[in-house]
């Protein structure tokens, strides 16, 4: 302390300190006022804005998926149900390391590679933030238990219970009802995205797809309070979804089952129609697949198995299979011949076992090598005489055949309430010119007369034409769904538009052709006379055998020598009872051989299944087939 700069002046220091302390107090007051003004600005002036912000933070509207409508058969048998299933889902936003989470879950339950792959694909699709993305469906009790115990270690993982479509009869109705599957990006663009905001499944094929709008229902909402992690803490308001409408089919489960059983492990299709309504009583395409597989996502291997199978289980033969109708069209061609004056019921021709056109060496062979001898039209139907119909077709000409058959539904889609229907082919000069740019050859007319050559028809078209025949010309439009049930009220669907009925110059021609068909079954020499054994009603039928493989002129068809895949298709159409038909049936067994003996029994089994209970009922109590 050599040179003290200034002496300490306590009074001055006290004074300075006081003034500084007061200045500091003033600064504190001002600063506090700044805070108060700031708070006033936020809490009073901007209160509305921040209130709204706080509410929109916590309150959100979540969509609730409606329950899909159920599907019943005509007697109230439940064919498509919704069953609770448990699935494990991940909320990506909460899970953190998604791969680690999947691995953790994989240590507890089995996760196939495809499962993870599909999950990642779902994850990449458009979705709400903080929404649960399902990883695996159909957890069993044990898996639920294992996961539940470990849930607290796995943020973002939850077990969800949801109602998922279930088909109790698995493969039996796979082609009739179709199935639902996970909705994809393409499909979501076609529907009202709002209405589907909570929906995971959409009808992919069959009735499920055609009636998607009715089955789906209307989305509901719940207004919920969520926390910052998107977890629902409270439900504030709920607007219940409207469940989808229930569908009541014309389908008769018993008839359907009978057809499936009768076809067994063969490939084919069988369709039954009520000629009075056009309602489809049975719709079978075999082999089929378990429709439940598609609901929650089929794994790649199983799908490849189905897709790659030569038996084509995914192929809906009923509406997409186009087969030569063969001799099943003969009754219609017969009526055409009489109506157009090309023949009459009394006229007889001699059948040597073949037919030959003038200026043509080609022999058009009958199925019976040495012929049927003297044949009239009635016998030609009963015995399915090809020679008679070669001659008749030649006399008629292809355009007469086309014009007469077209109203029966050949060559055009029936517009049944299913999707992806094929139209078949009803050839004509015009058709050949338009599609092949070729003239029509007379020989082709002969082949067409026995339902071969260019002519192709779906089993559904055969069933429809048979029903129209059974109706004696009254046109029907085939339908799967009879009525729609909404809010407990069942309302029949409006009948679809139909073409004008077929009016013959002589209505007796119906009866005569049908008499020929009756003999096919009930006459001892009919092509399907074995079907008459033990029959309790009168059935009209017609067998058909469609050639798949063209044999050479002089070669004999020998089933045992030809590969199974080249054997003839067996066809049979029938309706019963003859006087007041209530069921018309078309059956095709692919590579099944002769129609009467192979396809016929399937038809008989179906008609039995449908008619016998009705006949039994009629004997005891007056009809009571309506659902209680």
């Amino acid at each position: 302390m050599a040179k003290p700069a200034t002496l300490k002046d306590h009074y001055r220091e006290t004074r300075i300190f006081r003034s500084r302390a007061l200045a500091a107090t003033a600064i504190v007051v001002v600063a506090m006022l700044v805070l108060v003004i700031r708070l006033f600005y936020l809490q009073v002036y901007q209160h509305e804005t921040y209130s709204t912000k706080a509410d929109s933070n916590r309150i959100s509207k979540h969509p609730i998926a409606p329950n899909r409508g159920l599907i019943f058969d005509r007697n109230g048998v439940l064919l498509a149900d919704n069953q609770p299933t448990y699935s494990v889902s991940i909320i990506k936003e909460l899970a953190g390391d998604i791969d680690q989470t999947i691995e953790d879950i994989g240590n507890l339950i089995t996760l196939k590679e495809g499962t993870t792959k599909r999950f990642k694909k779902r994850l990449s699709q458009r979705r709400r933030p903080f929404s649960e993305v399902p990883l695996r469906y159909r957890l069993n009790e044990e898996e639920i238990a294992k996961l539940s115990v470990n849930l607290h270690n796995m943020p973002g993982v939850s077990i969800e219970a949801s109602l998922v479509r279930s088909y109790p009869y698995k493969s039996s109705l796979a082609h009739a009802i179709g199935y639902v599957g996970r909705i994809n990006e393409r499909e979501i663009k076609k529907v009202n995205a709002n209405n589907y905001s909570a929906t995971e499944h959409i009808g992919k094929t069959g009735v499920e797809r055609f009636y998607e709008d009715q089955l789906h229902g209307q989305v509901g909402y719940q207004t919920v309070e969520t926390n910052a992690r998107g977890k629902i803490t409270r439900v504030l308001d709920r607007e219940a979804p409207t469940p989808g409408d229930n569908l009541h089919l014309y389908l008769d489960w018993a008839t359907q089952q009978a057809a499936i059983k009768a076809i067994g492990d063969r490939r084919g299709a069988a369709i039954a129609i009520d000629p009075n309504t056009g309602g489809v009583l049975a719709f079978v395409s075999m082999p089929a697949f378990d429709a439940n597989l598609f609901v929650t996502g089929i794994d790649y291997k199983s799908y490849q198995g189905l897709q790659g199978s030569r038996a084509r289980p995914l192929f809906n033969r009923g509406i997409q299979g186009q087969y030569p109708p063969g001799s099943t069209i003969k009754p219609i061609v017969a009526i055409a011949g009489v109506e157009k004056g090309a023949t009459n019921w009394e006229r007889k021709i001699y059948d040597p076992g073949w037919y030959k056109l003038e200026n043509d060496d080609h022999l058009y062979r009958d199925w019976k090598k040495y012929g049927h001898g003297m044949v009239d039209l009635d016998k030609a139907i009963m015995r399915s005489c090809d020679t008679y119909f070669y001659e008749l077709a030649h006399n008629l000409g292809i355009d007469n055949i086309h014009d007469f058959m077209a109203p029966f539904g050949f060559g055009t889609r029936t517009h049944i309430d299913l999707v992806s229907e094929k139209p078949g082919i009803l050839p004509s000069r015009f058709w050949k010119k338009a599609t092949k740019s070729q003239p029509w050859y007379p020989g082709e007319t002969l082949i067409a007369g026995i339902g071969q050559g260019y002519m192709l028809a779906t089993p559904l078209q055969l069933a429809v034409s048979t029903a129209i025949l059974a109706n004696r010309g009254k046109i029907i439009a085939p339908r799967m769904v009879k009525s729609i049930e909404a809010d407990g009220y069942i309302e029949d669907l409006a009948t679809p538009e139909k073409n004008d009925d077929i009016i013959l110059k002589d209505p007796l021609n119906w009866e005569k052709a049908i008499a020929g068909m009756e003999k096919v079954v009930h006459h001892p020499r009919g092509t399907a006379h074995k079907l008459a054994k033990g029959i309790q009603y009168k059935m009209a039928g017609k067998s058909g055998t469609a050639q798949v493989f063209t044999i050479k002129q002089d070669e004999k068809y020998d089933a045992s020598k030809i590969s199974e895949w080249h054997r003839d298709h067996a066809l049979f159409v029938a309706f019963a009872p003859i006087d007041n038909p209530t069921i018309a049936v078309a059956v095709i067994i692919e590579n099944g051989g002769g129609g009467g003996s192979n396809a016929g029994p399937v038809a008989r089994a179906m008609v039995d299944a449908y008619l016998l209970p009705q006949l039994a009922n009629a004997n005891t109590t007056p009809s009571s087939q309506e659902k209680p």
Partner: protein
Amino acid sequence: MIRNDFQRQFRSHNSPVTRRTSLLQAIHLDPSLLGGLLLLLTAGLFVLYSASGESMPMVMRQLTRIVVGLIVMMFMAQISPNSYKRWSPWLYVIGIGLLIGVLVIGTQAKGAQRWLPLPGGVRFQPSEVMKLIVPMMVSWYLAERALPPQWKPVVASCVLILIPTLLIAKQPDLGTSLLIASSGIFALFLSGLRWRVIGGFAIALIPIATGAWFLMRDYQKQRVLTFLDPERDPWGTGWNIIQSKTAIGSGGLNGKGWLNGTQAHLDFLPESHTDFIIAVMAEEFGLVGVCSLLILYFAIIGRGIYIAMNAQDTYSRLLAGSITLTFFVYIFVNIGMVSGLLPVVGVPLPFVSYGGTSIVTLFAGFGILMSVQTHRKLLSR
């Protein structure tokens, strides 16, 4: 002036009324300050209960800390200002040594190196005690010199302040270094630093701030940018401030009611029980509640300034004054940051925010204030 002083001291110390309150006086506690603090602590525990998601264990832990803090405060109050004065330079040297120690061998947590490991698994945060040592040191240094300080002492004081500030900023701990710098600066200010020098500092601050920008860590830069425009990153760094403003604003005049704040209870508000606890209070008790809290704070600050003004020597005056004003900086920076006036700096709301070390330091500071108030001797000068 002399007479006034004498009369005031005579009144306060020789009147029979004051004598009777001497039980607290005897254990060196200031009743008004203690009363204000207890009121504040009680209110704080209620807010904490709500902000912690109604967690009683957390409230109990906080209560434990408060009890520890009160004991520390009572202990600090027993030590006379003269002892503090004597130890100031030594404490400062030790403190700087510890800060260097932290940078060399300190343990890391949350990306910052703030703790010194002690035997027995206890961690010690030297930057916390520096909150008291720096004002002590500056007060000691200035008290020895003639006031208002001349150029040399001002520069020397600045160096004394800057050394620990920079060491702590390097940890990095922006909030604490800010509090420490301000505690030293307040001592300077109260010592009568000339206004024109203050003005000069303010102008110099502009290039310093610019320079600081380049020294800042990325997360610190982010905080400043987010402060300037929280919406630039609403899901990341802007989230906190958007949510806290929403909490405060939605509280309105009267609030949503205790335990009814949706922002905190539904986890939208991060750090709701620590640095952002005032947002919870603003949401649940509204403007009325926050203003009441501010009034309580102001009363405590007022008492602190009163103690400083009545302190008997320059050291006690400067120390008490800077401790009180630093307490205010806590409040202003915290509420300013939560309401979006200031960038987000890690400064807790004193005696209300949940947390360990800083609350003990605060109590220690108030212990010193009480020591200044209760160790006065009549006519000591």
